[in-house]
């Protein structure tokens, strides 16, 4: 197990290095300049800025400097803020996105699993239709429409929740729902199809014929076998949720890290683009590792080392 983890971490380092290099090349080949000279910026001011951020050095020198910096876990300054560095942005924003993402994840997993199981057990009856219509809405309605809709009715019309900002638990409710809908729908659909397959397995029929309690069978044999596909996608869903959503955070004024990457590209803020890409990659790689370990715990037939003894 330990050997497996060490090996995976080494591979992760290589992957991250490759991501840095590719991002660095692509980022510098798109047209545009972080200090685009519209309006009245004189030449000297422009030169001073480029020199201050070392943008006037040859690209390979900048690349070397960046790798050296990264080795010390320093993501560098943001070109658009004299106040916050990229490290500050992540340190301030990640806990917020993590909280919002975790809340949304819990909501999405609990509700998604319940809806999926209900739908499968009541196949082609009204609870199935209801659950699947909800899932289709969740998948097809974009989060910005859902968010606007929730704000309009629950906050502006009925005054049940505040419109936006990030202060109390109550402020987190609407963004959590907006963020949870899509993964919830996805999990519900996945759970339904996987559960349907399991329900037809011989061991389920055997268990039933032994006269075991119906609910017991469903949880002990059904859920445990059906949940594997869900666990597989859970790593990616979690990574998506905890790294923040640009749209949901933008609309609700949530001070997370969801906007970091998008705004970084828009502003050609090179350190922010690189920093956020690396950070997202680390999270994703870490979560995929967790998922692989979780497999062995849920299904003892799977061995991490890939050896079949």
């Amino acid at each position, binding site marked *: 197990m330990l050997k497996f983890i060490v090996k995976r971490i080494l591979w992760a380092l290589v992957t991250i290095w490759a991501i840095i290099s590719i991002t660095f090349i692509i980022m510098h080949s798109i047209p545009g300049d972080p200090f685009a000279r519209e309006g009245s910026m*004189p030449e000297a001011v422009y*030169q001073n800025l480029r020199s*201050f951020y*070392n943008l006037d*050095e040859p690209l390979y020198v900048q690349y070397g400097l960046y790798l050296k910096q990264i080795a010390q876990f320093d993501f560098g300054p943001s070109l658009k803020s004299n106040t916050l560095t990229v490290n500050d942005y992540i340190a301030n924003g990640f806990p917020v996105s993590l909280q919002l993402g975790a809340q949304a994840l819990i909501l999405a997993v609990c509700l998604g699993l319940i809806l999926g199981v209900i739908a499968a057990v009541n196949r082609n009856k009204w609870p199935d239709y209801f659950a699947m219509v909800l899932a289709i809405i969740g998948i097809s309605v974009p989060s910005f429409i859902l968010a606007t809709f929730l704000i309009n009715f629950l906050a502006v019309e009925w005054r049940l929740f505040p419109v*936006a900002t990030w202060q109390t638990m109550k402020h987190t409710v609407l963004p959590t729902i907006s963020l949870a809908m899509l993964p919830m729908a996805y999990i519900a659909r996945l759970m339904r199809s996987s559960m349907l397959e399991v329900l037809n397995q011989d061991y389920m029929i055997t268990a039933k014929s032994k006269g075991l309690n119906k609910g017991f069978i469903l949880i002990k044999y059904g859920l445990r076998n059906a949940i594997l596909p869900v666990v597989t996608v859970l790593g990616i869903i979690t990574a998506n949720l905890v790294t923040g959503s640009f749209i949901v955070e*933008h609309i609700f*004024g949530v*001070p997370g890290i969801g906007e970091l990457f998008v705004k970084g590209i828009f502003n050609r803020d090179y350190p922010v683009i690189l920093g956020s890409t690396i950070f997202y990659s680390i999270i994703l790689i870490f979560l995929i590792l967790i998922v692989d370990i979780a497999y062995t715990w849920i299904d003892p037939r799977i061995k991490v080392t890939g050896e079949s003894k």
Partner: protein
Amino acid sequence: MKKRLNIFMSVFFALMLVLAGCTTTGDKADPEKDDDNKDPNVETPAEKKVLRTNNHSEPGALHPGLAQGTHDSWVIDHVFEGLTVKAPDGTIAPGMAETWDTSEDGLTWTFHLRDGVQWSNGDPVTAADFEYAWKFALDPNNASQYAYQMYYLENGQAFNEVGATILKEYNEAVEKAEKDGTEPPEKPVIAEADLQPARDKVGVKALDEKTLEVKLATATPYFLDLTSFYTYYPINKTVAESNPDWFKEAATFVSNGAFKLTEWKHKESLTLAKNDSYYDAAKVNLDEVVLYVIEDNNTAWQMYQTGEIDLLDNLPSEVTGKLIADQAPDFHNAAELSTYYYNLNSDVKPFNNPKVRRAFGMAIDRQTIVEHVAQGGQMPAYGVVPPGMPDVSGDFRENAGALFEENYDEAKKLLAEGLAEEGLKKLPELTLLYNTNEIHKVIAEAIQEMWRKNLGVENVTLENVEFQVKLDREQSGDYMISRAGWIGDYVDPMTYLDLWVSDGPYNDANYSNPEYDALVNTAKTSMDPTVRMEAMHQAEQILMNDMPIIPVYYYTRPHVYKENVTGIYTLINRQPSFKFADIE
């Protein structure tokens, strides 16, 4: 089908409510957290007056020398104060300086600071704090984007250019090396020894604790307007020298204005409190101001509707249109230092002919554009200098009035005459260039249609490109008609009229008229307000007769505040000021 959808929606809603209920149960124990939706005035004790508003984006630098936009300046304007201030009516009034003297040639200014002015930490505000702040902005190693605001100072530009001069050779070497694939030289360091002599020559000097002597590069009649601008604000030298990061957190923040920064939750909110050591504190009524950081204009507008904020500018444009139509009592509109216009390239036929240019300018129905197309509360423009600029007495725009009229018959006649003069039988194919943007697009379409209907011009095609591409093509003269806008740098008509002097760096219309150049020069060099303003009125009239650019509208600054808020005023190049605001 629709009915069924409704049922689904209701079920969906019911479920949402159940969910919402579930997630908040852990919250009920805390009585403080349940009051978000109650009337804010009930919650706040009567004696504590709190104004809540939106700052739109996280400030990049709450530092006078490093600030570079409205997301910084709105806070800075309320927590700092310069030598002069703008009174609510827009006139210049004493700020940190009580009095000042000017030399005859307008080059030397001596400011005398007020007695007993203090920083929020109790230090006295001294002339040295101004000298330090102004030189900080110019120092090339600080890479200030607004450093050029200090180029008015004698040798200011030279100091700012020290770095660029040293690096020029290096930059060329890097470019050459990248082309040849050879090794470039090491990047040179801009050492303190290179900077010190240039710094000492900059025309600002603290003669003693309370006297600041300023020497300018050229006579600048609007210099007192500049000293009220944020790049010219002071910095507490002692604090800044011992802690260069002083402006990054509320705990170390020191300022000298009507308010002080007491809390800064990054990307979330900023809290300002009344600064009791401010000399004019008796006139400041608010105890606290909360500025949220909400980037989405619609969300901010919804927060205003639910009473979570009291004052809001940057309204969504459809909201502005509706508020104007409804004559909402909490809606206010103020002049802004900004004009929307079209460039006509004077270097290409047929726009080399002034009659043709005038014809195109006269055939646009501006009222319709403002009311039905742009819909943001803008004002039709019949001149280039926007309203709100002071004249010798009164308002420059009002005194000048409309400098041309919309007259379609006259326009057709002028077009025919102009074409005849150029020996053209009909108009060539025309292209209107604009940068990709929904508003620019609909305005361009409307104007295209107006030219067709009012002038009989059928062959105008629209072309949209990225903003950077548009700038490039304008500068290289590769266009016929192009959309443009200009935000004034300072409050004097010169910030506009200077644009169209022959070979001016921003003269994208390639206009050239010696008479115009002479008048602009007169206004630039004279210190006599009557002479200057007269010259600028004449220059604007010439410009509008020749019409190298077609003014379309003046931008305005629509904003709303609750009816129990009083004392808000909006200066022409600033956001609404809450310095003297009150809540009833």
